[in-house]
């Protein structure tokens, strides 16, 4: 079932009014999507071998985005959104929620480059950057519906879901950290309701 669209209606910022969405903030469309979580072997920013589903997602609530380190305009915005989201998550990060950034240019983005990139964002444990064999990365991206034949044209999108489920929510465009946080809270509540 399609999720209702989330509309941003936050006032425009001035120089002293940071932290709120600006005048250019568009209506962000979101919807439910079916994903396939391929358990392909990948590498994280520390060069550790990880299976995508079993290790990187690890049955957490997960937010996924894509990037490549040579990207100048789009990916840094996605990165900034994750950077703020990790602050909003506080102690939930890694314990219950993971942020997973998958490179779309695995040939260039070897672990040391990912490490440097993760340092740029001051990423904490629980925000993982993934690369690997191109065919494995492409396989994972295809399962998530995030594959682009031309990696420079990868769509700005976030996937939010429960790694135990196949139905996820896709945000098309630059969702705000608050929007993503709202979805995360909803999924955490759902889990709690199931276990209680």
């Amino acid at each position, binding site marked *: 079932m399609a999720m209702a669209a989330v509309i941003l209606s936050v006032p425009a910022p001035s120089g002293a009014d940071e932290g709120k969405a*600006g005048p250019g903030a568009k209506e962000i469309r979101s919807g439910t999507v079916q994903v396939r979580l391929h358990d392909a072997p990948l590498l994280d920013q520390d060069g550790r071998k990880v299976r995508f589903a079993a290790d990187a997602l690890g049955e957490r609530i997960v937010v996924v985005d894509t990037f490549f380190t040579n990207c100048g305009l789009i990916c840094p915005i996605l990165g900034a959104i994750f950077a703020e989201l990790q602050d909003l998550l506080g102690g939930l990060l890694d314990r219950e929620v993971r942020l997973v950034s998958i490179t779309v240019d695995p040939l260039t983005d070897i672990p040391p480059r990912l490490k440097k990139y993760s340092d740029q964002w001051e990423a904490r444990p629980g925000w993982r950057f993934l690369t690997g064999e191109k065919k494995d990365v492409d396989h994972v991206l295809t399962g998530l519906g995030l594959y682009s034949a031309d990696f420079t044209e990868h769509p700005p999108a976030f996937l939010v879901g429960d790694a135990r489920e196949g139905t996820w929510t896709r945000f098309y465009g630059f969702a*705000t950290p608050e929007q993503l946080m709202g979805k995360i809270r909803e999924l955490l509540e759902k889990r709690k309701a199931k276990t209680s």
Partner: protein
Amino acid sequence: MTARRPTWTVLVFLLVLVFSAEAGGAELTDAQKRGKRIYMDGKGRGRITAFLPEPGVKAPGGGFPCVNCHLAGGTGQSEGGVQSADITWLTLTKEQGTARPTGRTHPPYTDETIRKAVTDGVDPAGNRIASAHPRFRMEPGDLDDLLAYMKGMDREPVPGVTDNAVRVGILLPSTGPLAEVSREVETLLSLYFSAVNARGGIYNRSLQLVPLRYDPSRTGSAAAAVQPASEKGEIFCFLANTGVHADDEASRYLSGEKIPVIVPLLSASESGYGTDRYTFHIFASLRDQARVMVDFLADRPSIPAVRIGLLYARDRSGEGGAAGVREQAKKRGMGPAVEIPYDPGKFDPDGAVSRLKAEGAGAVLFFGGSREALVFSRSAAEARWSPLFLAPAPMVGSALGAAPAVFLDGVRLASPLTVPDPGSARMKDFQGLRAKASLGDLHGSFQYLAYAGAVLLEEGLKRSGRALTREKLVGAIGNVWKLETGVTPPLTYNANRRSGAVGASILRVEKETGRLVTAAEWREPR
């Protein structure tokens, strides 16, 4: 078709090849160096943050270094429909002001209005600049440093490039088995560069070869040779580095510094994960050669359902070849192979022969050392078993020349080389240089590779234009399509491909002469 005749000598080389396992510019001031760090890395003495008005998020400044959009030198670019401004000092401050692509105009920038543009996102006329432009928060001292750097960044020298020369480094072992090879390669490239320079150079710049010698018996020696030269800005790029493996500290350093390396010799190219954007190889990886070997089997009409025996060493080369076999066998619907991995130095040829024979393997694909290949051939002959035996020539070299004749009949070797066309202009040029230097045939393939690397570099420099940078060179070579070098298959590179000639030919041993002849022409894997 006339069978071409590579010789065992070529293969001896191949064995060794893959498996022996700022000039002219003013110094930046301290403030400019700190400003450069802000521009390049988004990091100052104090904390820097970036606020993005459109999604309304605040992020570490490191996520939005100026260079990402405005590029090194500040010339700006167009990406994803967004135009980032030319922020070179001359453009920002020219007296007649600036008309933006939107048609908007504003007075020339001053130090103060640039500060406001960086921190508040407004131009000198008070217009808001692009919403994609972050508003930065940084300490006044950091802002001063950034301005100091911006004032001179378009005149910052490119390492190794002067008004009249491009300095190209080459790492050469001063001792050991490759010392002679390195002398030949250096001589050949010096002659090649002299010929280019005699024609007027490239955009009025001469090519200068800068040899950096290292002692291969000392760990870290190559890195110790590279780092000071790089830090002093003496080298633009490297060509035909000899004997420096991909996992050597020097290779890692060059990659980390984003210094282009064209056709390193004796560094196995890798396909798939881990390919370095700044390093360009010629030949296919073992994995891709293995894929061509499987294609060769799959396309043989006489044995449509041959069962593959996969015999490989548990090391990087062996595992790479085995992965290629699995991938291609699956793609070609050939069914799983009978796999026998072995630890290097602990090979049991009799055991391997009896198991493969018992499992009905009709073809053995071998990825191990030359000694193991030879003992395997003898065990198979003793067991009166003559399967098709395919191996990459670079791995087994000339050792199989001593295999029993009955076994040799089934031997097929994958070679990433083609035999050059002696009539091509490039080949004639190569032969001319070789004759001039009185170089022999023994290290012919090293010479081929070095020559092909020089052709590739020359092409890349021409495509990069006079305003040369390392990124431009990498971009230019990364778009080369079917470049004829005369001595290798045509070279093609793209964003996902750093081996120019991904393919192999299949050779067999001619009974009458014992020479290697072509059994299947060079081709790319399907």
